[in-house]
């Protein structure tokens, strides 16, 4: 009884956080825009320059998404098939790549590639080299789900026909989800394009948001992008609904010999991860900057990790709470996805409009606003995870449990949570990693209590403080290792005998 109420309380807190971080800021921004519509600056409307930047950003994000998906295919195949030590190492490698903020990799690649490298190509490459593991993981789950029909098709047709007629149609929704997740992340990213010396749409909107008072002058230039992105999301959602996978069951992956596939995938993972990090370490030169960074920024690092992890937990709990929603699930999921698709600077501005009030000072002046900001930015990941988990509510086990008297909370606690704890662990770390590299929202809502590490790193980059930049970057890399290990153990099913 106590546990049930405890769970409900925690879930309620997550819903409250969603209302505070998503619903309330939306209302505040709309109210502010309505109040200021008479006095809005005429120059704030969408300009030709912003149109060009929007097109460039969409093209850049789409290109990086396509390249990530391309890079993800072979590793996804390997992931779907293998078990054991190689699989564990591969997963460790994948998690290591993703759990480190992408701007860290820019600094590594910049020191390796010639200075004359085209900045657009550099940005596209760094994004793709960072994000392909995400697409791999999603595609691999799709690959596993349709393995049964694929093998059945192999009995009657050749490999090529089986791939074209069974594998590809079944993988399309998973590719759609991958594309959606990657595109939204790339489009909202500020750090990588900025470090590459590019002005993209996110840069422009952050400039407007930081340099204008009130929300109107940030909202107006954001409208075309928001409409474009939401239309894209709607198109992907429609496509996914129209192409539901045929494979019903989840197949346990089997030990198969795929020869060079897993080694190619492992090499790709190691190249994406170790090459830029090794280059950074090589350029670090001395150990002393690491000590200095820890001494100078210990407090800020602690709080940066704390707020990012808190946001990760909040998103994970939010994912669980969406499972228990019935009629409101699609509303709150849709709202959070739409909020995630907004330019990140607009999200920050909305939070400022919502909480910069005397009665909200306890939150606005507090580090909690930073966690709430991260939650606003990445709640959509929790919402998507919630949709995946909610499918279990329709399972036979859930129906049987309900007949036996289990409440939805019990089903969540005893059935769904144990099944998806790996997903939730990955979600917590993923959101924390994204939060640690988040710049636009953080810029607008930073509090006096601490300096977020993402902003400190950007500042070090600007001031050519290479030693400190590398030291802080390596601290982020080091911090991501235990998380990568946890995910690899949880997902890789590391068996003791495999290690012996």
């Amino acid at each position, binding site marked *: 009884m106590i546990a049930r109420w405890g769970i409900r309380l925690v879930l309620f807190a997550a819903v409250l956080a969603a209302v505070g971080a998503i619903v309330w800021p939306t209302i505040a921004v709309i109210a502010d825009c309505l109040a200021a519509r008479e006095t809005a600056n005429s120059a704030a409307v969408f300009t030709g320059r912003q149109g060009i930047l929007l097109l460039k950003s969409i093209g850049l994000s789409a290109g990086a998404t396509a390249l990530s998906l391309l890079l993800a295919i072979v590793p996804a195949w390997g992931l779907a098939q293998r078990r054991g030590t190689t699989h564990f190492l591969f997963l460790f490698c994948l998690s290591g790549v993703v759990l480190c903020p992408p701007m860290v990799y820019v600094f590594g690649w910049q020191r390796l590639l010639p200075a004359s490298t085209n900045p657009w190509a550099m940005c596209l490459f760094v994004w793709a080299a960072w994000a392909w593991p995400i697409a791999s993981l999603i595609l691999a789950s799709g690959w596993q789900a349709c393995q049964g029909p694929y093998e059945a098709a192999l009995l009657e047709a050749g490999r090529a026909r089986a791939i074209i007629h069974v594998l590809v149609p079944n993988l399309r929704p998973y590719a759609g989800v991958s594309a959606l997740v990657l595109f939204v992340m790339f489009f909202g990213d500020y750090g990588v394009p900025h470090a590459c010396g590019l002005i993209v749409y996110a840069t422009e909107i952050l*400039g407007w948001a930081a340099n204008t008072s009130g929300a109107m002058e940030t909202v107006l230039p954001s409208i075309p992008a928001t409409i474009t992105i939401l239309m894209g999301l709607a198109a992907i959602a429609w496509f996914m609904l129209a192409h539901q996978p045929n494979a019903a069951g989840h197949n346990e992956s089997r030990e198969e010999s795929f020869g060079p596939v897993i080694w190619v995938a492992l090499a790709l993972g190691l190249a994406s991860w170790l090459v830029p990090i090794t280059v950074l370490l090589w350029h670090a030169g001395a150990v002393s900057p690491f000590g200095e960074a820890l001494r100078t920024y210990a407090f800020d690092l602690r709080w940066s990790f704390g707020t990012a992890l808190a946001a990760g937990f909040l998103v994970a709990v939010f994912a669980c709470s969406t499972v228990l929603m019935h009629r409101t699930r699609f509303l709150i999921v849709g709202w959070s996805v739409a909020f995630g698709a907004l330019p990140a600077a607009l999200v920050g501005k909305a939070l400022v409009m919502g909480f910069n009030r005397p009665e909200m000072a306890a939150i606005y002046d507090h580090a909690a606003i930073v966690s709430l900001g991260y939650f606003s930015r990445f709640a959509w990941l929790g919402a998507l995870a919630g949709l995946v988990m909610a499918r279990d509510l329709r399972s036979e086990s859930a129906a049987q449990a309900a007949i036996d008297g289990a409440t939805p909370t019990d089903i969540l606690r005893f059935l769904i949570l144990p099944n998806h704890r790996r997903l939730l662990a990955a979600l917590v770390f993923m959101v924390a990693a994204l939060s640690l590299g988040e710049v636009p929202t953080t810029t607008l809502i930073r509090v006096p209590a601490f300096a977020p590490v993402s902003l400190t790193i950007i500042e070090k980059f600007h001031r050519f403080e290479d030693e400190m930049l590398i030291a802080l970057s390596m601290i982020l890399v080091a911090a991501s290792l235990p998380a990568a290990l946890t995910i690899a153990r949880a997902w890789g099913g590391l068996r003791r005998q495999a290690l012996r």
Partner: protein
Amino acid sequence: MRLLSPFNSHEAPQAFFESCAYLKQFAPSTLFRFPLIIGSSRRELVESFNTRTRFLVCTLLSAIAFATSTGCKKDSNGDGAQVARPVVYCSVDEQFAREIITKFEAETGIKAEVVFDSEAGKTTGLVNRIIDEGKAGRRRADVFWSGELFNTILLGRQGLLEPYKPSTADDIPERYRDPGHHWTATGVRGRVLAFDPKVTPADQVPTSWTDLADPGVAGRTALANPLFGTTRGHVAAMFALWGSEKGRAFLEDLRRYEVRIVDGNMTAVRNILDGRVAFAATDTDDVWVVQRRGASIDLRYLDMGDGGTLLIPSTTALLRGSTNPDARRLVDFLVSAEVERLLAKSAWGSVPVRPWLREELGMEWPAESKVDHQAVADSMDEAVQAVREILIR
């Protein structure tokens, strides 16, 4: 509404238990069941909870401890009374400002909390934050320590600054002090044109800012977005000195000849190092920093049209409504000769406004434009509007 803020992290759980015990007196049995159980003895808690529930409670308590451990921090003063830490909004670069704030803390024992600016917003970002907070009827910061002057003047005009005469500013020339004591200015940086002497011989470097509008120069020049930072004040100074018509024509030429707009002074300098442009309009400190790292880069003070370049001082101001005595001590410290000397010796490289200090440090005062600071502030809105209509569109 600072109910949570007085607690430090180690006090938070205890405070929460005490709150629960207090609520126990009034609680209806079901509504407060969960907190009541938390308020029970530790032994009862351990016995009654299974592992998963304990995990939940721990998570909840951690969240609460987190929630009560920061915010407006308070320290004890000499009398044992709780005093809130002064909060500084700072647009002086972090690497220099952090060192100075640490020195202040070491000398006085007063802890200060600082919000630094970011490349995206620079000073303008913090100024808008102050304005937004002022509009909302509240104040978070006590002190505004800015890397430039003109936005500080505008804040003063909006009634967002508290008059305060620092005890350490008597030897600062009047040009660098507000007659109403709303702000005090110290060490100046110059607006300069940076170039790589290995790539561009000195005789090919422009000598006046109007030369930038030349077809052969504009296309090879990087300029930080003039809506933000010191570039914003620089364009406003051009409007103040040249008049609206010439100012707009200058911007139109820059656009016509495709000046490269980047998102910060440092990015402009980086463009020179990467070989993408030949010139960058920037501040002196951005060049000093890169020079100290051994890069091939030099600068030239360009003529604004009246025989001198624009010099932009840093300013320190107390924000309206701040009653924190420690904030006043911090203002005194920040405008002191000691800090001006530290900044002059650092890579920030500002030139002290105190003549005796310049003499002591052997620093020369660059030829300064005679443009009136108040006139620059007057021109700010018009210049920004023109930039939006002509250059950033």
